[in-house]
């Protein structure tokens, strides 16, 4: 057995999860799809005292239309379920084709991806581009976070140790909205070296990158240039790309520009 010993709990209700998080939050890990947590346990990068398996909680993976428009996605909705749902915006479906491989998408969850906040992950940057709201729950009640302020940095979010992600709410985006998701990776399903999520409506544009900065965020200067019909590339000076031996800062910045230009072409802008 590769993981270090841990205690395992499989609560059947949200109340029981919250009680466990109240008592052990900082020493506990929530097990949803496990497609990142299980490798981290196997490599002993994660050594929690307690693993809280939320797979037995009914309804936590439901995908439902919000009556006034938009869609509500339960935190434990599997990537494959989100990808197959006609309710979710096309941006998410095309981005999910880049998320790992089929067997991992059968198991991995939207809430898990957002909670982990891997800088290369596609779903956090889609949430920013879609203006999504991420709802966390603790025994103190629900907290609603704008996706644009939820991701703080490398594997760091606004979620506190006694909170779990409960659901994600995507606002209504009418038929005039156009989306593009493009990504550069060494191999289909590998971590993105750089990716862009672009959403364009009438007089509105939102874009966010993955794999470029430590966390996805809105880029107001670049968005303003796009709206003005100007060359958006000078706006990308607002990026502070990550730097690594295989993908230096200058290369990530270059990819960000190339991907943005292709994405704009794909939505019919420029």
């Amino acid at each position, binding site marked *: *057995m*590769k*993981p*270090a*010993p*841990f*205690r*395992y709990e*499989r609560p059947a209700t949200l109340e029981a999860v919250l009680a466990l998080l109240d008592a052990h939050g900082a020493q506990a890990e929530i*097990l949803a799809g*496990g*497609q990142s947590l*299980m*490798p981290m*346990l*196997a*490599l002993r990068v994660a050594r929690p*005292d307690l*693993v809280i*398996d939320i*797979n037995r909680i009914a309804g936590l993976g439901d995908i439902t239309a919000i009556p006034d428009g938009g869609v509500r996605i339960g935190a434990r909705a599997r990537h*494959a379920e989100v990808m197959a749902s006609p309710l979710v915006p096309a941006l998410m479906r095309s981005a999910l*084709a880049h998320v*790992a*491989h*089929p*067997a*991992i998408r*059968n*198991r991995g969850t939207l809430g898990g991806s957002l909670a982990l906040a891997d800088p290369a992950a596609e779903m956090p940057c889609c949430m920013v581009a879609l203006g999504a709201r991420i709802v966390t729950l603790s025994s103190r009640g629900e907290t609603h976070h704008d996706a644009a302020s939820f991701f703080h940095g490398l594997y760091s979010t606004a979620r506190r140790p006694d909170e779990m992600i409960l659901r994600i709410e995507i606002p209504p985006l009418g038929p005039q909205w156009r989306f593009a998701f493009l990504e550069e990776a060494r*191999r*289909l*399903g590998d971590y993105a070296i750089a990716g862009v999520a672009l959403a364009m409506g009438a007089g509105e544009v939102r874009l966010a990158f993955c794999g470029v900065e430590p966390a996805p965020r809105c880029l107001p200067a670049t968005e303003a240039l796009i709206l003005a019909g100007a060359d958006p590339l000078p706006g990308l000076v607002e990026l502070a790309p990550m730097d690594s031996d295989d993908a230096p800062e200058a290369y990530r910045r270059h990819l960000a520009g190339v991907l943005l230009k292709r994405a704009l072409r794909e939505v019919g802008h420029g």
Partner: protein
Amino acid sequence: MDNQTLSIACTINDRAIRATIPVRQSLVDFLREGVGLTGSHVGCAHGVCGACHVVVDGVVVRGCLILAVQADGAEISTIEHAATTSIGAALQAAFFERAALQCGFCTSGMILQAAELLAQNPEPSRDEIRAALSGNLCRCTGYHAIVDAVQMASARLSDIAP
């Protein structure tokens, strides 16, 4: 905490199984060591290679990325059961005929993933086959023969389909 165990009951290849297992044991380790089904292989043990694929409640998953205790109540099917389905049998025959394996370590995972693809998309293109198998590493064949074999199985299944 060192040795927490739990009792589980599940169905594996149509057989009811009960066992008491350590909570930190992966499903693939349980299938190999606890149940004696050694057709699912442990390559990397952290989700990269796809050799450990098994079918849990109708979907293909990485057997190393799910705890055995999470399979409590589940219906599991492994490569040992693949020949009982028409798609699985067609893939096994095509892999053999097309020599789509050399050492065979990755083959069980490849076949289960290809079977899921053909169930969802009976006549996939070569690109679709490559995308579906992108999470299954083979270090022998160079993949061309594997893609050929999936296409061969797909063609034969379409011929016999009503």
